[in-house]
């Protein structure tokens, strides 16, 4: 299942380079084969990537940022982060002030061959909402994470601030030899609400760029460069000029006239070269105009590539009822694990799309859920935010129906 069909005898062979399936007989043999021209032409069924690049540990956590970049639905009730008080799991929104809690973080390692020794875990709290920019440290620890499927948990003691407030937990991992640096940050941001005929809950969205959007890079048009064409036609002109100089010299000699000498000959040849280069330049400019017109036609005729630049002050908010069902290895069907789920009940966010005003620090949007009457099982509503097209945080709101 899924093993590369290299035709070279397997995915891992020590000291093996790309070449017609022959095994290396040592470094000197390999060097000799390269120097004498025994090389693979074109592409090969398999290419062995250097071990230092392909065989690295990968400590990771449930990362909403990575999953959103992959276009997958996410939950903000992070399966790898839990808050306990007296052994009872808590939601991040309803934590009491000046109270001791335990934050338990589970770290995975996606590598089957390298343990992630000395992985740093940093845990912080952020003001509840999406994209809070001010972080407050809770604790830091160093752990050794075994190879997949092993995991490691770390517990952090946290006393909440004395001032009442609502919090989001952010976890960051770090490892000096990390094979994937984008799966190291996870958030835990949850809230529980009692269902009424209509549930309304504000969600604060913080502005990532309160001082304004950074200047986008200027994109230059395709430059024109006619060097080789001018060189080629210039050489042709030079050759023609040489022939002309020789002819001129011989003609003058036969006519008994004084020859032009070396300077004259060189002047004729230089003139030929300049004329040839000019012809090449003109031809190249005309061809360049044709190429630019073709490029414009291609850009119109063919599908535009993936998402173009999104204004950095544009905020897009979505809501769904996706549920993450945890599992590992062969128990996991990725297509099922990330199957999207629309809102279980009529739900919307207002406004769903807006642009921050210059200098605006944050804005509250409102999650509105029309819960059904009567008791029943709770439902989760994930509010996910993007700013400038980039994942910007979110919250998972559990709506309970009394019963």
């Amino acid at each position: 299942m899924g093993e590369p069909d290299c035709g070279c005898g397997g995915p891992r062979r020590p000291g093996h380079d790309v070449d017609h399936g022959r095994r290396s007989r040592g470094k000197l043999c390999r060097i000799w084969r390269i120097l004498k021209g025994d090389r693979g032409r074109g592409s090969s069924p398999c290419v062995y990537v250097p071990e230092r690049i392909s065989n690295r540990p990968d400590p990771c956590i449930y990362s909403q940022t990575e999953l959103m970049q992959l276009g997958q639905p996410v939950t903000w009730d992070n399966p790898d982060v839990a808050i306990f008080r007296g052994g009872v799991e808590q939601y991040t929104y309803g934590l009491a002030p000046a109270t001791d809690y335990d934050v338990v973080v589970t770290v995975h390692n996606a590598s089957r061959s390298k343990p992630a020794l000395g992985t740093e875990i940093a845990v912080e709290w952020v003001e509840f909402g999406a994209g809070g920019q001010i972080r407050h440290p809770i604790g830091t620890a160093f752990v050794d994470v075994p190879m997949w499927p092993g995991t490691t948990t770390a517990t952090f003691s946290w006393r909440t601030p004395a001032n009442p407030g609502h919090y989001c937990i952010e976890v960051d991992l770090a490892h000096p030899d990390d094979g994937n640096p984008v799966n190291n940050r996870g958030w835990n941001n949850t809230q529980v609400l009692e269902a009424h005929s209509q549930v309304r809950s504000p969600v604060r969205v913080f502005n990532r760029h309160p001082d304004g959007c950074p200047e986008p890079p200027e994109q230059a048009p395709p430059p024109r460069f006619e060097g080789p064409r001018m060189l080629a036609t210039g050489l042709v002109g030079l050759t023609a000029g040489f022939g002309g100089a020789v002819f001129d010299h011989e003609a003058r000699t036969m006519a008994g006239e004084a020859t032009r000498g070396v300077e004259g000959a060189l002047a004729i040849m230089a003139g030929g070269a300049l004329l040839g280069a000019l012809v090449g330049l003109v031809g190249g400019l005309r061809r360049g105009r044709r190429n630019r017109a073709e490029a414009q036609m291609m850009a119109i005729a063919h599908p535009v590539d993936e998402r173009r630049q999104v204004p950095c002050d544009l905020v897009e908010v979505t809501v769904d009822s996706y549920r993450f069902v945890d599992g590992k290895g062969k128990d996991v069907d990725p297509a099922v694990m990330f199957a999207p789920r629309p809102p279980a009940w009529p739900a919307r966010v207002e406004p769903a799309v807006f642009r921050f005003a210059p200098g605006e620090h944050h804005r509250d949007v409102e999650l509105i859920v029309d819960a059904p009457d009567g008791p029943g099982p709770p439902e989760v509503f994930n509010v996910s935010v993007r700013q400038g097209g980039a994942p910007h945080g979110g919250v998972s709101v559990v709506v309970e129906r009394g019963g």
Partner: protein
Amino acid sequence: MAGCETKNREGNYDWSKDRVGVWSIIGAVGVGGLTYLYVADAFGLGALGGPASAVMALAIIVAAIAGAVLAGFVGQAFEWFNRLKEQDPKTITFVGWVACAKRNLGNPTLPEVADGDWTFNIAPTMPGVATATRDWAVEGPPGLSVHEVRTRTASGAEFAGRTTDPGIGPEFDILHTEIGSRIGDYAAVGGAVGSVAGTAVGIAAGVAACAVVTALTLGLGIALCALFIALGALIGALIGGMVGQLVGAGIGAIADALSDFNERGEAITHGCFVRLTGTWVTDRSHQHNEIHDITASQIIECGTAAATAPLETAGAVGIGRHPVGPDP
């Protein structure tokens, strides 16, 4: 399977070659002009007549060509080390299908095509599989799109066009990625150094050959001597440059081997869905963007196991619920 090739939808794929051409033009004009001025000042060209003037003119032309060759090798080295311009952010992580994989081991006298780099063309679809979805994405940093990765021009570069692999299809979109080898760097340096040294040796040989024409009349003898020196410079520049590139490539291959470059590596082949992390650059030589150098690679899955839900599988691997690499 066809070779791993690249071609631009827009921009000048041969931008560096054009630049080397300009180096050659400058070398030709400079050396030819200096040669002419030296000869005119030393011998009074107006006094030369008959066949001597033609031979002297030919000597000046040959000297100009030698200058073109020498400047070409030097220019090639200069452009080689100035071709990659880093983007901001410098490091990105990208997932997609491996459309093809190869190592650039070909003619070592042309570092551009034989630099020893491991190259992978990453595509949005598995080659040969018709699908409406485009299963490639930029995983990090957040907010970066595939379109921007493929088309934003880095600071200091001129342009970045979208890349295709014509070996697979005339409009098969790809992102080109490479793991750098030392062969190309050492070959470029070797070519420049070898050409300079070869030119010096050739000139010395030409001067020594002048002894055979001392019996001729002063004008023709001088002209032939000049021609010998110019020919020596041309042959020395050309052979010295080629030999220098070969030697440099060999030293680069040795350096790669001594750094255990290939030990216990993972095999990546077309049909694998991979995650690559590396330096995002604009390659000025071909006016397209690529990841060069790849610093970390992960095989998400290969073949049919990945075909049904590649991005979902990448997500499962990314959060540690599925291991890296093909399932046993």
